[in-house]
Structure formats: structure tokens, C-alpha cells
């Protein structure tokens, strides 16, 4: 490390000697600006990779909550969706989301390429980095959709909806909030959604809700009287791994949404993220313990996710003390929501609660806790500061209303397009596998193989060549000789 630093100093000195003009004030400012921009993009690149890692988190979470016979399909689903949404985002989605245009959709940036004019600027490396980072968010949002559909959906439905979602659904919402669309200026106030409690999480959950309404519950989920029955997932360790991967990925999700390294503000965002996630676990564990006298493993995981979803919108707008409150409430919400939702519809992983309701809570929480120090230009601070601080309460209430509008807008737009798409899928290729395929499991029926073959197919014996324990003599008498052949 020291050696490299020394080398850098030497090179810099040499450059200064060879090119005397390099030391002039104007070019130093210019170079600094360039390097700052590059440093910013290095941070976004790191964050982007972390958000891509969240695909693994969703994969393990959903596989863990599935039964053994539906383990492999979770892998195929994540890979295929990730791939399709990438192409859809590159070809169409990015242009609609970020391509300037009008209040509804962008109109430049389709089939994204170098030098292309996107919203008045030529595409370069920085634009490419930001476009890729946007894709990571879109892919997370899509992954959320499928949480409600486990163990019974037809694989073809993924393909169709992933195209619609990556090209239209997510980009429309992203454009409205982040691309200069409808929600970026409501009577002078912008919706404040730092990293996407509504744009990413609520969007995914509403898509999941639409799919679930047309799909119906898994066979055996409700008894003859309509009472819900538990269909335990096959691996709580996989659920735990998924939750931790998502948790880590979230530092890229929220932290990277600073898009810059200035004042190391990402540190504040990341601290808020961690505080809320921790409080989410605690809130959920306390809530489920009071309800059921057990610390439910899956609920602890849902609590972490809910805390993270809840802090996603406020992470860059609230002080550190507000983050644990937001997370704790999200953790409590998710438990009661899972219990209530389970009575009516079958959501195996709790996506509607953890991403939907916690997403709504997070979006509204900005309107309650947003600090005057951090709010966007033109926005009102949180209601808290209107009551306990010197900020204008009417402006705060106005901002809260704007946050509520974002929730309604997201729900309406995503639900309308999604329910139409899933209805179309249901009427054409079909949304749900036949009962016999569902009973056999999607691994063997949709993919021709089991996720865990040995669990279903007997394996041949194989001798390791080590001494066989059964060869041990029964006792040191004459009869032991007669027993030996038993082992052979």
C-alpha cells in the first residue's frame, strides 16, 4: 500500500514536470471535477453489484419457503427473469424511465447505445453505469412479484410478465418519481422516495397481488371450512441465508442511491438502513411472540425485510433516531399483516406484507420523519418537525399528502397493467399448472428434474474401501468365524 502511494506521488511529480500547464488552477479544478465524477461512479458500481447480489437473496428466501419438490424451479425462475428483464430494460424500459420526455413516459434512450442522445445528453460511461444501476432496481422489483406465486405458477407466465414489467410497468413508476414525471412535482412538492419503498417495493408487491388474485391459493392451503393451514417451507437455513444476503445487498440499494460520495453521505444512509433492519427483526419477534408464544423463524426474517423496505424511502431523508422507529413499526406491521392476509389469500413468503405494506409505511414515514436538514428542494419536512419543531405544519401535512399520492398512484398504475397482463396470460397460455403437476412439484413437472434428486430417487451403494464396521466379530468365541460371511 505504502509502496503504491509512493509511486503515485512520484508519477504525479513527473507529470507536473513534463507538462507545466497541468498545474494551472483551471485545469486542476477540471481534473478534480472529473475525478470526483469517476469516484462517484465507482461507488455506484460497488452498490450496483450489491443490488445484483440481492437476486441470490430472493432466490434462497423463496426456495427456503417452498417445499422440497419446488426447490429447483426457484433457480430457473430467478435466472430467466433476471435475463429477460435485462434485455427489456436495455431495449425499452430505460428509455421510458429516464429518457426525459413528458410527465408520463420518457421518449429517448431506447436500445441504449454509446453516444446516443438521452434526455438531451450523449451517452457515456457514466450514463451506462447509472443505466445499469437502474436495471438492478428494476430486477429487484420484478423478483418481489413472484413471492406470492410460488409452487403453482406456470413457467411461461414469468416470461410474458417479465417483458411487460421490465419494459413498461416499472419504468412508468420510476419515471413518475425519479425521471421528472408526474410525482416529481405535485404543487411544487416532489415525492420523496430515496431508494424506492414505493417505486421498487410497493410496485413489486402490487404486481404480486394482481398475480395472486388470478392464481388462487396452493392446493391444500385452506381446509373445507376455509381455515388456513401451514404449508411449511423446506429449509429455514436457506430462508436465513436469503434474508442476510438481501440485508447486505440493501446497503447498495440505499447507500448507492446517493449516486455520489460527497460528504460521505452514503454513510448516514447506510447507518439508517442498518438501524431500521435491526429494529424490524426486534419488532417482528416481539409481535409474533405476543401472538403465538414462539419466536417464528420465518417471521424474524420477514421482520428484517420489512424494516429494510420501510427505511428504503426515508433512508436519505431522516435522522438516525428515526430509523429504528420506522423499522420497529415495519416489523410489527409485517407480523399482523401476514397473519391477516394468510386468512384470505395464499402468500407463501409474505411478499404482500413485507414489501407492500412495509413499502406503504416507508413512503408515508418520510412524511412523518423527514428532517429539514435533508429534505429535497421544495419538499416539506416531516410532520414530526411541524409539531415538535419550528417547521411549517401545513407544509408538512402537504408533503404527507404527496407521499400518500405516490402510494395511490403506484398502486393504481401497477395494478391496472399487471391485472390486465395476468388476465391475458390466464386466457391464453394459462397462469397455473394442472393439479397433478402441482402435486408432483414444479421441479419434475416443469423442469424434468428434481432440485434434490436423492430425496426422490434411490442411489446405489458404494464401498469406500475403508474397513467395514459390520465385519467386527460378535464376540471372541468360535462362532465369530461363522459370522464373518454375513458381512461379506
Amino acid at each position, binding site marked *: 500500500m505504502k509502496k503504491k502511494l509512493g509511486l503515485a506521488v512520484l508519477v504525479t511529480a513527473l507529470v507536473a514536470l513534463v507538462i507545466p500547464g497541468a498545474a494551472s488552477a483551471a485545469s486542476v479544478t477540471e481534473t478534480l471535477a472529473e475525478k470526483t465524477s469517476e469516484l462517484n461512479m465507482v461507488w455506484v458500481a460497488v452498490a450496483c453489484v450489491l443490488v445484483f447480489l440481492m437476486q441470490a437473496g430472493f432466490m434462497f428466501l423463496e426456495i427456503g419457503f417452498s417445499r422440497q419438490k419446488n426447490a429447483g424451479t426457484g433457480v430457473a425462475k430467478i435466472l430467466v427473469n433476471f435475463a429477460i428483464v435485462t434485455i427489456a430494460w436495455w431495449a425499452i424500459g430505460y428509455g421510458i424511465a429516464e429518457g426525459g420526455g413528458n410527465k408520463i413516459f420518457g421518449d429517448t434512450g431506447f436500445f441504449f447505445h454509446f453516444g446516443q442522445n438521452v434526455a438531451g445528453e450523449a451517452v457515456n460511461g457514466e450514463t451506462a453505469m447509472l443505466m445499469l444501476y437502474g436495471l438492478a432496481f428494476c430486477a429487484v422489483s420484478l423478483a418481489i412479484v413472484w413471492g406470492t406465486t410460488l409452487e403453482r405458477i406456470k413457467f411461461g407466465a414469468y416470461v410474458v410478465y417479465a417483458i411487460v414489467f421490465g419494459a413498461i410497468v416499472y419504468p412508468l413508476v420510476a419515471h413518475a418519481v425519479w425521471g421528472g414525471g408526474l410525482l416529481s412535482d405535485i404543487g411544487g412538492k416532489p415525492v420523496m422516495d430515496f431508494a424506492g419503498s414505493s417505486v421498487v417495493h410497493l410496485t413489486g408487491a402490487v404486481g404480486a397481488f394482481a398475480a395472486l388474485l388470478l392464481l388462487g391459493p396452493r392446493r391444500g392451503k385452506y381446509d373445507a371450512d376455509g381455515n388456513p393451514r401451514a404449508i411449511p417451507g423446506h429449509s429455514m437455513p436457506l430462508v436465513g441465508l436469503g434474508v442476510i444476503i438481501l440485508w447486505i445487498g440493501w446497503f447498495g440499494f440505499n447507500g448507492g442511491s446517493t449516486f455520489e460520495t460527497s460528504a460521505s453521505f452514503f454513510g448516514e444512509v447506510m447507518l439508517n438502513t442498518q438501524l431500521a433492519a435491526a429494529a424490524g427483526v426486534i419488532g417482528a419477534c416481539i409481535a409474533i411472540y405476543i401472538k403465538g408464544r414462539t419466536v417464528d423463524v420465518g417471521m424474524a426474517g420477514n421482520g428484517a425485510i420489512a424494516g429494510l423496505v420501510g427505511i428504503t424511502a426515508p433512508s436519505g431523508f431522516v435522522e438516525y433516531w428515526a430509523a429504528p422507529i420506522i423499522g420497529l413499526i415495519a416489523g410489527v406491521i409485517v407480523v399482523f399483516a401476514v397473519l391477516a392476509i394468510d386468512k384470505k389469500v395464499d402468500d407463501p413468503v409474505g411478499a404482500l406484507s413485507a414489501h407492500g405494506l412495509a413499502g406503504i409505511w416507508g413512503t408515508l414515514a418520510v412524511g412523518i420523519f423527514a428532517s429539514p436538514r435533508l429534505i429535497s428542494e421544495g419538499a416539506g419536512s416531516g410532520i414530526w418537525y411541524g409539531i415538535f419543531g419550528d417547521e411549517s405544519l401545513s407544509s408538512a401535512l402537504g408533503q404527507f399528502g404527496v407521499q400518500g399520492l405516490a402510494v395511490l398512484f403506484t398502486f393504481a398504475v401497477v395494478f391496472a397493467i399487471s391485472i390486465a397482463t395476468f388476465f391475458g396470460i390466464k386466457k391464453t397460455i394459462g397462469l397455473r399448472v394442472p393439479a397433478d403437476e402441482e402435486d408432483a412439484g414444479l421441479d419434475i413437472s416443469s423442469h424434468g428434474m428434481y432440485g434434490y434428486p436423492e430425496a426422490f430417487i434411490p442411489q446405489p451403494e458404494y464401498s469406500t474401501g475403508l474397513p467395514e464396521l459390520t465385519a467386527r466379530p460378535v464376540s471372541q468365541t468360535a*462362532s465369530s468365524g461363522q459370522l464373518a460371511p454375513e458381512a461379506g
Partner: protein
Amino acid sequence: MKKVEAFIRHEAFEPIRTELLDKGFPSLSITEAKGSGRQKGIVEHYRGSTLTVNVRPKVKLEVVVEDSDAQAVIDAILRHARTGEVGDGKIFVLPVEEAIRIRTGESGHEVLQLHDGAEASA
């Protein structure tokens, strides 16, 4: 020939196996079984819903021996499988018509497991 068939707790199997081996009965089979009796099922809590599993996991132990050896096997099972609580299991003794060793094709008493006292009865 008799088959001693016992449904026992998982933890009882290893001591029974050890004693049977020491007494000269190395040949046995076990199967993971699920069943119900006087012992109630298990109520599992999962994400707020309950799941009642009405059968409990047990080990099914099968040993085929000479008529005269059946009691020794039963004694070994009783000694290790009894805790005195509901759910210790049951033993059934069934008559066996024939025994054939697949490797050699030989049948009858030859096939049954041998033990220290076996030569006398064979």
C-alpha cells in the same frame, strides 16, 4: 422362525442394536415409520398458522430369529425402549414361513442369524 417387529423411539435403537450384536444377532432392519397410538400428534406453528401432524416418527425394527431366540430379542428391546412414558411403542411377534439368503440361494435355518448359543439349536 419368528419375526420380532417393534416400533420404538429413535433414541432407543442404538442401545438395542448394540445389545443384539453382543448377543449374536447382527442381522436386523429398521425403517423410518410414522404412526399414531395413545401418544398425541405434534402441533407445529409456522408463520402464525398451526399444522397438526397426527402421526409421530418412530423407528420400525425387524429381526427374524429362531423360535427359541425370540424371547432374548424381546427382552433386549424391552430393556432399552421402555421409558415408562406414553409413546414407547409396541412389539409384535409374527410367524415366518421361510427365509432365503439372496447371495447364495440357501434357505431355512442356515439363513438365520447365528449367535453364541446357536449351534446347539441348529
